[in-house]
């Protein structure tokens, strides 16, 4: 009897504590003081500090490595203590929003003209990157994929211009790989999940069907697989997973590859002596044109930030064309604001002109929850098992179809 009473008392106590905590969370917090915590992806933390030094807002920058973001997000959401502002790679946006990590901005943006959807390219503006009908982020940097080629090495092999279609890429790569001596013609990063998707788009296909479901069982995707596996079966591509793409390009071992503007920046920094011996050109075309990835990142406000207004002020500052252009100077990451993308000085560099033109037709990856983890990994596993381990093509693809079945953007 006594024990029952004690248990009941303990339960009541626990319930009271639970109620107490809920009650504490309810009232809207006053705007707090102190520096804003901002999560910036990659190794650009110091650059970001330089960028916001003139904003008049006190900012505490935390640099988060790209491959640690999932773990970091999970712990931050679970513990309830996140930053005020965070950078979100577009492929992660849906996952972040599903976790309830992001504040819905629909009603808040009206006061900030710099953040209005019409300032941004259509592919990422406003509702195009909304999740569940709510705008949870604003565009920050854009990123796309173009073809990088070592023009000097191509010229030696008798090609005076970079290949413009995937058929030409295969043809050129074969000739370049025939140089022998450990040289290759082209490089496919084994972790590059968007590449086959872009090939599919460029063949005129989609990876999402009319109902919004992930669908790889299309003739266009088959053609993309032909290109992907063909480059390997031609012997044009290195098969080791620790191949260094920047070094491979600079040393000329792999003189052609598809990558983003950051590679251009990396080459210019690491090997200034190569200036004029390499160039960026549009993503190789298929039957459907040259359609590359609109990658980039958005910025969002953490769902329980106690400095929402200051955060939005900082976002407004970051959306100014001058700030965006300064960021490009610091890091080589492209702006997302139209006014900055059209800047004549920015476009005076022929490579940057290639990037901005590619962005005009670029497409965002489907906003499927956990795209990278689920679809991206399965896609790479299927294709790489064919090219690296000689798995049967049809059964590898069937495994991919069934693994991604039922995933949808809805």
């Amino acid at each position, binding site marked *: 009897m006594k024990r029952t009473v004690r248990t009941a008392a303990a339960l009541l106590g626990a319930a009271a504590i639970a109620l107490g905590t809920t009650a504490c969370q309810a009232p809207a917090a006053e705007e707090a003081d102190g520096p804003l915590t901002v999560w910036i992806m990659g190794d650009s933390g110091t650059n970001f500090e330089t960028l916001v030094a003139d904003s008049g807002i006190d900012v505490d920058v935390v640099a988060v490595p790209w491959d640690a973001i*999932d*773990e970091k*997000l*999970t712990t931050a*959401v*679970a513990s309830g203590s996140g930053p005020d502002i965070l950078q979100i790679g577009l492929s992660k946006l849906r*996952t972040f929003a*599903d*976790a*309830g*990590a992001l504040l819905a901005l629909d009603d808040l943006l009206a006061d900030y003209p710099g953040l209005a959807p019409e300032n941004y390219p259509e592919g990422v503006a406003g509702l195009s990157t909304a999740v569940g009908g709510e705008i949870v982020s604003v565009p920050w940097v854009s990123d796309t994929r173009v073809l990088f080629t070592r023009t000097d090495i191509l010229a030696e092999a008798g090609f005076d211009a970079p290949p413009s279609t995937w058929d030409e890429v295969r043809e050129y790569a074969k000739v370049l790989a025939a140089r022998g001596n*450990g040289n290759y013609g082209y490089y496919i990063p*084994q972790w590059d999940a968007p590449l086959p998707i872009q090939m599919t788009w460029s063949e005129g296909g989609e990876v999402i069907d009319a109902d919004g479901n992930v669908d790889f069982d299309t003739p266009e995707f088959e053609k993309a697989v032909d290109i992907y596996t063909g480059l390997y079966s031609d012997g044009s591509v290195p*098969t*080791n*997973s*620790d*191949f*260094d793409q920047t*070094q*491979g390009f600079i040393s000329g*071992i792999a003189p052609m590859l598809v990558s983003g503007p950051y590679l251009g920046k990396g080459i210019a920094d690491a090997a200034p002596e190569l200036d004029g011996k390499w160039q960026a050109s549009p993503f190789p075309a298929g039957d459907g044109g040259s359609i590359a990835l609109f990658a980039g990142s958005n910025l969002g406000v953490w769902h329980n930030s106690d400095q929402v207004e200051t955060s939005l002020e900082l976002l407004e500052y970051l959306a100014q064309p001058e700030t965006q252009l300064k960021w490009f100077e610091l890091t080589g990451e492209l702006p997302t604001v139209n006014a900055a993308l059209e800047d004549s000085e920015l476009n005076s560099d022929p490579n940057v002109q290639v990037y901005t033109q590619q962005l005009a037709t670029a497409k965002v990856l489907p906003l499927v929850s*956990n795209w990278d*983890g*689920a679809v991206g990994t399965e896609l790479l*596993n299927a294709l*790489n*098992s064919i090219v*690296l*381990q000689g798995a049967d093509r049809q059964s590898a693809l069937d495994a991919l179809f069934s693994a991604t079945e039922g995933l949808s953007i809805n």
Partner: protein
Amino acid sequence: MRNRLVPYLFVSPAMILLLAFGILPIGVAAVISTTNMNISAFASWSNVDFVGLDNYATLFADKDFWQALGNTGFFAVIGVPSIVVVSLVVALLLNRGQGRFFRALRSFYFIPAITAIVAVALVWGYLYNTQFGLFNYLLSLVGVEPVQWLSDPWLSKFSVALVAIWRGTGLNIIIFLAALQGVPKEYLEAASLDGAGGLRQTWSITIPLLRFAIFFVSVTTTISWLQFFDEPFVLTDGGPLGATTSASIFLYKEGFRLNQFGYASAGSIVLFAIIAIITIVQLRLRRADDEY
């Protein structure tokens, strides 16, 4: 009456810690493993549903999970005997002298065990690198084609295991050295009077007397290989194509990359059961011969 409570009082701090950090998490994982909990649970608890044993059914039908279990078994079969034998042999050799040179060697062998795994991985990653690695450079001097240490599905298993063996021996050498201090000199003297040589003494006296240390090292090493995580995580991230994905890495990826907490919990319960069963079997086998 009161005296009977005293022992409980003394064990209670340890018991509370064990309950809070050992038993409770397993219980929580067991409960979560019967739900479909994923990251959307943090947005609202109403997104969590009870699914019974569905996670376990999916798990046993998941070929990636079987691959991870197979890899773990492979790693354990390679790793446990290697570590036990290598550290025992090194400890026996180190025990032959007490001079400054031997003391320096002892710390030398212990260095891998206390070096941060990320630094270790960085250095080994460079050694193994296909294009610029030292190993391939040395091979190229004798005219051997570059070897894909971490990219070939079979070779990468051995490459990763080698780093773990290299790292795991240090601590066990210390344990064996400590146990060697407990081998009575009289036995060895008596044996040498009887005309037994060094090898014979080691084989018939020292090693049997080290039986408990060998047992201890085998059990702890087995457990650590069944939980194998660090080396493949930092060297290959479980690749190429899952060839070095251990059970722990599989669980980590499901739980923290794919945010399938329910599914990952089910896997962790299965792994826990496997480790528990293997350890119990080892303890039972030992009980049969603890007299000598």
